[in-house]
């Protein structure tokens, strides 16, 4: 059987690279001297793309690959893929929902606890020897605080379920109200922020949700409020976030994502009321393997004319 050319957009865990290499002819875009030339050179044979949350295919790349049949993304976020173009050209798109839902929700709660109970700051306090000179300070209780969730999809619901175990009242904003949930709905993010103490961004990134957390929202959340972002960096107006934190208009933040990863605003490094993570929402051995299996499984299904496992388009 002829070998199928699969364009891989960026390095991924070695398990996934090996699984792909054992089945297909993998073309590694990041090793190319000049990326657009590399794509031109292989444009006649590339039938599949494997990308991730940070690397997708825009209209230009899609147009440059006339034999492209499927894009299998190693992520649930697909904001870097021109889905419309794929639909137009009949290109299938698969992603990795469900297998990472719990992982991301766990991290959201971990960030809330780390910020409110100052776990990272405490750890620094002990390691630096400061504890020998005096007691640590009082921190902020998590149990019972009102949690507001932007986006009540799979991840949003999983966060709500966990927060409920801490007796937290839950409220949310979504494009449309969800009829079968008991959580309180607010028709705008501003109203949501005015009525909760911890605001969690858990929606997908689209043109409408870019900068959904802006200066006004942060002011409404307030000097005792905490923002948690496990969505995408562009959900939050980052320069406004920095000034809100530095000026004390916002009480704290737990961030896993940023507007220009891996760059993180250095003003945040000096703040004790923030926790900064390097986009690790799905970063466990178990979940990355499950995601990889879905990426490969979808490609296998496609190339053997079977129904795709987790199609988006």
């Amino acid at each position, binding site marked *: 059987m002829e070998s199928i050319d699969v364009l891989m957009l960026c390095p991924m*865990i070695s398990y996934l690279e090996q699984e792909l290499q054992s089945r297909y002819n993998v073309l590694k875009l990041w090793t190319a001297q000049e990326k657009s030339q590399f794509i031109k050179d292989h444009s006649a044979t590339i039938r599949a793309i494997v990308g991730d949350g940070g690397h997708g295919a825009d209209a230009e790349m899609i147009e440059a690959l006339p034999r492209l049949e499927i894009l299998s993304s190693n992520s649930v976020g697909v904001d870097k893929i021109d889905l419309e173009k794929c639909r137009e050209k009949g290109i299938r798109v698969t992603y990795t929902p469900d297998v990472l839902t*719990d*992982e991301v929700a*766990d*991290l959201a*709660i*971990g*960030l809330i*606890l*780390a910020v409110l*109970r*100052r*776990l*990272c700051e*405490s*750890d*620094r*306090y*002990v*390691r630096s020897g400061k*504890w*020998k000179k005096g*007691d*640590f300070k*009082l*921190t*902020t*209780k*998590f*149990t*019972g605080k009102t949690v507001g969730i932007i986006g009540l999809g799979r991840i949003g619901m999983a966060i709500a*379920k*966990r927060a*409920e*175990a*801490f*007796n937290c009242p839950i409220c949310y904003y979504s494009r449309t109200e969800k009829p079968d949930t008991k959580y309180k709905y607010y028709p705008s993010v501003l109203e949501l922020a005015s009525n909760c103490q911890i605001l969690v961004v858990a929606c997908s990134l689209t043109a409408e949700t870019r900068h959904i957390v802006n200066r006004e929202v942060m002011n409404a959340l307030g000097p005792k409020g905490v923002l948690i972002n496990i969505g995408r960096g562009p959900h939050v107006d980052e320069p406004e976030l920095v000034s809100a934190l530095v000026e004390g208009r916002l009480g704290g933040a737990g961030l896993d994502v940023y507007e220009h*990863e*891996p*760059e*993180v605003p250095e003003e945040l*490094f000096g703040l004790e009321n923030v*926790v*900064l*993570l*390097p*986009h*690790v929402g799905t*970063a*466990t*051995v*178990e*979940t*990355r393997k499950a995601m990889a299996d879905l990426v490969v499984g979808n490609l296998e299904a496609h190339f053997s004319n079977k129904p795709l496992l987790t199609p988006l388009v």
Partner: protein
Amino acid sequence: MAHNDGDDVHAHAHLHHQPQDLPQVLVIRPPLSFSNFQSQYSHKFQFLKAWESPLPLDQFLTTHANSVQAMLSTVSYPVTACVHCLLPSLRLIVTPSAGLNHIDLDECRSRGIRVANAGNLNSEDVADVAVGLLIDLLRKISAADRYVRQGLWASTGDYPLGSKLGGKRVGIVGLGSIGLEVAKRLEAFGCIILYNSRKEKPFVSYPFYSNVVELAANSDALVICCELNDQTRHMINKEVMLALGKKGVLINVGRGVILDEKVMVWCLVQGEIGGAGLDVFENEPDVPKELFALDNVVLSPHQASLTSESSKALCELLVANLEASFSNKPLISPVMND
């Protein structure tokens, strides 16, 4: 000039109750936030502050505290039999902690002294930190935060992968108020709860292990929530840690002495256990410096019960117990000796 009723009451209290008329409360060492507590309640009680006196403690007690009936005790100064001897009129000890290992309960019982503690007031806060430490450890939150702040994400690349919490078997040592709150929270993350306690709990569906070593052998994480007493001192020893294993992790929000700390440090350095999240230590605030070099430990300065919200509620509880005692009423959160 307009007053409200509260102002009038306070002003009157100040006029009619000189400090020497107020019931006395002995404080040997100050608990955290004592100055706030003192200023808020100085119209109700006269605080005898031993640490402020130049006299050695036994002289201070004999001279100034001979007729004192109530003491506010903290973990930083154990109330031993010797202390009792110098306080013949003592009828009540209140402590702002749930733990009682710093109070000689037998001595109190034989002298007819009542004891009141924090009850379950701090249980939620302690459970929150236990869960926070476990997530931090498995998902490497504090370690990755350090990594980002050092600028390593941009220069060196992605941080190593962590481990999934869901599906992990969590063995809770001590299924009291705190242990139950920990269990309830972790169930929502898809953890499987197991436990060891003095006695099996009749209304609980989690599998019970009468032997801590067996519990450890069947757990991916061990969370220590029990009190410190003669049976639990160094209960988490080498055998337990080796049973927990190289991928197992340990969380301690009980008391440092429940773990054999020297052995734990050795296990961590040798890789015999996978990691630890610790809020308490054998000899606070001293922490074994070998731990500072490890990325698979999360260290916390005994702060699990200390939130602003609990602190406020705790002050109110302590005062309520003191007032109940001074007016010969039942205590609000008495310690029952069983």
